[in-house]
């Protein structure tokens, strides 16, 4: 029953928030609820969690099953860290109807938790959609100028993907021996190779859109740019992980032969995506778009490493799921601080952050190092393992993907240079210290370096998933 709390805490708080007009109080409730979730998530790491298994739809033989293995735990931890961090860091931002905003954010959190915990395919689909609906409203109501069209594109893209996945789920359901949606029954379905390919394709499209893999990525940069920053943080830190999670949870174990038959094509697409996104990032003057494209490149590397189908690479991805979330969250918080106080997203109008706000500038540099995966930072561990697996499969692919590290250094350092150094620009002159946000950033940077120097806890946490995937 413990796992149920990850759904109940945000949902109860979200419903409560609908009735609280007072802005400050609403803020406090959201922060408290998300911190309680975080406490529960930390607690989960130290105890033995039992599976929740409740009767749900007997007619369809679908049960309400929540379970947490290492993969689920690391993503729950990431989600649980992200939400309080976002709430605290953006607490000073002005948002109309803040209680509704926070309420929808908490519904999103519940949806995400549900996706990572669901042990029944129909339930998984349910949460997969539910995480999307509040985001649709968040972006369309509070987003930037072009928000309605952009969010709509995002919504239709992902909705189409998930409907195709639904067909995949029904397809699997019909091939199970006991006509059930349970993960275990799916495993025992015993598909032939051609059937595996069909089911693989149906599931893969949904995950590829969510990650996104080139050429299905076109919804992403605009959506990141136009969403309110708090939502962008959720999207890029946690939500894109849904796609990778889906590959790890469903594609790899259920369709092993179809999976290994398609590794090359997906790896090539991912690498094209990495290079493409990196080159665009270099050209960006808009700091939010720069971070967005950089995030696409990083996710591309993770998907390439997953499809390399090697134990080291998968281990790297499992770690990187967490690390990438923390790093990108840090960068977004800094970008948001600058944008909120100066009103500009353009790098060319920035400059002199180091003189005006030295602490923030140091944090920016630190997160930038993490973004280019320098040793000692958390991203180094994951990326090293991932490149290792790419190299095992095909050195040329590893080399092509390796170029992205150089490119990442170019755009990230360019950003740091334009933003932090030089004379204090008119825009940066307006900046003042935002203590809560800085506190959050400091906590995040501690996580970056601690897991960078001593990643063993993360390895231990995800060991069971890796065993499940590769030893069997």
């Amino acid at each position, binding site marked *: 029953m413990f796992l149920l709390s990850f759904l109940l805490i945000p949902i109860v708080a979200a419903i409560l928030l609908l009735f609280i007009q007072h802005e400050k109080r609403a803020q406090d409730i959201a922060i408290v609820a998300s911190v309680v979730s975080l406490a529960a998530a930390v607690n989960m790491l130290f105890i033995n969690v039992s599976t929740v298994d409740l009767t749900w*739809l*007997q*007619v*369809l033989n679908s049960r309400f099953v929540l379970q947490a293995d290492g993969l689920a735990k690391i993503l729950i931890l990431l989600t649980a860290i992200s939400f309080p961090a976002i709430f605290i860091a953006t607490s000073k931002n002005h948002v109309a109807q803040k209680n509704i905003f926070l309420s929808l954010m908490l519904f999103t959190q519940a949806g995400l938790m549900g996706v990572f915990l669901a042990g029944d395919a129909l339930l998984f*689909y*349910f949460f997969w*959609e*539910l995480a999307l*609906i509040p985001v649709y*409203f968040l972006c*369309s*109501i509070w987003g930037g100028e072009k*928000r*309605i069209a952009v969010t*709509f594109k995002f*919504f*239709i893209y992902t*909705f*189409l993907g998930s*409907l*195709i996945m*639904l*067909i995949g789920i*029904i*397809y699997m*359901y*019909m091939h199970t021996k006991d006509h059930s949606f349970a993960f275990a029954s799916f495993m025992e379905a015993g598909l032939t190779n051609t059937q595996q390919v*069909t089911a693989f394709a149906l599931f893969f499209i949904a995950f590829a859109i969510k990650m996104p893999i080139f050429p299905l990525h076109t919804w992403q940069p605009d959506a990141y740019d136009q969403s309110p920053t708090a939502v962008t943080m959720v999207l890029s830190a946690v939500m894109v992980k849904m796609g990778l999670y889906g590959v790890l949870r469903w594609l790899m174990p259920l369709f092993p032969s179809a999976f290994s038959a398609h590794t090359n094509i997906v790896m090539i697409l991912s690498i094209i995506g990495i290079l493409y996104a990196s080159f665009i990032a270099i050209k960006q003057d808009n700091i939010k778009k720069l971070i967005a494209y950089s995030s696409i490149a990083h996710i591309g590397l993770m998907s390439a490493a997953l499809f390399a189908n090697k134990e080291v690479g998968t281990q790297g991805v499992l770690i990187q799921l967490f690390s990438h979330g923390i790093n990108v969250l840090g960068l977004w918080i800094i970008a948001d601080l600058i944008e909120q106080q100066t009103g500009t997203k353009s790098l060319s109008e920035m400059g002199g952050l180091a003189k005006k706000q030295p602490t923030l500038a140091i944090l920016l540099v630190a997160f930038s190092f993490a973004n280019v995966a320098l040793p000692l930072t958390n991203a180094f561990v994951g990326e090293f393992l991932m490149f290792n697996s790419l190299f095992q499969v095909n050195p040329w692919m590893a080399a092509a993907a390796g170029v992205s590290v150089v490119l990442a250094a170019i755009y990230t350092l360019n950003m740091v240079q334009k933003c932090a150094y030089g004379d204090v620009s008119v825009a940066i002159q307006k900046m003042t210290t935002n203590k809560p946000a800085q506190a959050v950033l400091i906590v995040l940077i501690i996580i970056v370096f601690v897991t960078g120097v001593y990643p063993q806890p993360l390895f231990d946490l995800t060991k069971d998933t890796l065993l499940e995937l590769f030893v069997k």
Partner: protein
Amino acid sequence: MNAIIVSALLGVILMFCSWGLKSESLQKNIALIGLLVLIVANLAQLNGWYVIDIDTKGMLSFSSFGLYANTILFILTFLYLWINAEEIEAIGHQSADFYALFFFILCGASILTSFDNLLMLFIGIEILSIPLYILTGSDKKNLLSNEAALKYFLMGAFSTGILLLGITLCYGAIGSFRLEAPVIIPSKGMALEQYLLSAGLILIFASMNFKVSAAPFHFWTPDVYDGAPTVFTSFMATIVKAAGFIAFVSIFHAQSKALGYSWELLLTFVILATLLVGNISAVFQRSVKRMLAYSSIAQAGFMLFALYGVSDFANEGILLYAVVYSVASIGIFAVLVKMKDYGFEAFNGLSKTHPLLAFVTTIFLLSLAGIPLTGGFFAKYYMLNAILSAGAGLWVVIIAVIFAAISVYYYFKVIQAMYFIQGTPAIKELPTTYTYKLLVLAIILLVLGVFPNLLFNYLYF
């Protein structure tokens, strides 16, 4: 049997009410109580208690499925009247006339859920259709309403003729009006009969497609739905359509063997054409009412999935789909009735002035689009499951799903207008209770969205 007798009697009683009683609210209450009586009478038969126990000589047969479908249709009508009574009163002189027509329609619907003989099908369809022509033209001073009624009548009469021709050909082939006819085997020198039967069934199929507005027999739908008074459009698009589908499913589940493989091909063509026409045309509409007319064609495309093969999923699915689609459509039409004009712009800024109304409208739209947590999701789910387990190609389902994604586009345009675009909504004065009535519909959709099995628990006992 109970439902057929009681609904016909109630129709007659209400006809006299319009002559004897002057108070419209009294007429409304009589109609509502009449519906409750009808529901009770029908449930009584479900429990084996008959008002008059007649041997129908194989004309009618009462299965628990049919009786359950009756109950659902009556309850939907009750909800419909409970919400829309005031609007009905605003049209014409005596609302009791309309209530009488509703009861006659329900009488036709109860025949359609229990016929066992093609003649009874014909009679049921006629009893169902004729009041509809009147309802369509009930706004006598409105030219559009008159045009719609005439169009509907002419085309409806024509399609009924086709139905009759189809029934005749079937009779010629098998020498019986019975639904479960003996199978004709061409190898025994009965090739001509085989052709006759196929031709007959195809004609019946075409005519039934006309009744449920499936492409390519859908051309009347947008004009009629648009021209008829909005309250009556709501009734036609929901309860009448559901009854038509239940009849459609029972004929073709009984007869699908006779047509064999080519049947699936024909049906696939109709399904895809319906989805294509409905969804693509809906995207380009500027009036919400016309958009809903096309969307009802699109939804019919999904309901046709139930015809593909006989399975529990098909039977349960068509009931679930009928309920969920009807509840959501009754809701959305009830909102539309209160709008001063039917453009998308009329909804601008509704969330600011009427937050609860905007919320329930959103639930209706999400359900029509088939988003999880609303009943619409499970309705679509059952249909997808039905057609896949009946052995349809995956490509049909994938195309259907792409159209489902397209449908999000036009349903969400209303949500966008309500929530994301500033403006003052063109809405009439609302009684406060009105929104709460709609909230009941929204709650039904949400409950069915989590526990769709609640609907089926009573089906098998």
